[in-house]
């Protein structure tokens, strides 16, 4: 299982939710809200995309909204 810790002050929840929706066909993605972070968990990921999934997911969020503002 892959997981990603996203800082609440740097990544906006709306962008995370949009990214989860866009990547839903590639993995079972769950979102957990922690105190200062959002924890994104990727389950049942295809082995071929496992290496790049997290990185592409992060880039996608940056492309969506350029951050929280």
């Amino acid at each position: 299982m892959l997981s990603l810790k996203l800082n609440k002050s740097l990544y906006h929840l709306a962008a995370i939710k949009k990214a989860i929706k866009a990547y839903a066909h590639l993995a079972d993605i769950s979102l957990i809200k922690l105190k200062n972070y959002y924890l994104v968990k990727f389950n049942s990921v295809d082995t071929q995309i496992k290496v790049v999934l997290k990185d592409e997911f992060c880039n996608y969020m940056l492309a969506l909204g350029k951050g929280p503002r």
Partner: protein
Amino acid sequence: MIKCKLTKDAAVISVSPALYPIDAIYGASYVFIDRAYIFLDGDEKKNINIYIKSKKKSSSSALRSLVGEFQNELLNYSFRDKINKSNRKVREGIIERALAVFGPQEILNEQDSGDYLKDPLGIAIPWEEKHAKPKAK
């Protein structure tokens, strides 16, 4: 202040948000998302860590060059942000003035009554009729 740490296939740039505004960091990151994987972490008020990983397998010198370009872009966006903030009032003033002169009310007043049957300037008269030579009797 910028601190940079290079690992095997990635680089971490630590930036102080006091010097480089967060919007500049987002802007510079956005420019590089086609060439590299960017991940942001850290404290928004103290120190932001930017993780850069090249999409292509590259040597350490190529990675160093990518980091250098990123730092330049960071500077570029910081300057743009500064100019943007300092010119904001001027831009708002220009727009306010433009809207005051050609406001929506002005446009509505300029609209004609919609009576297309009257032709006070004779526009509807065909050219041949208007400029026809009078027939000699």
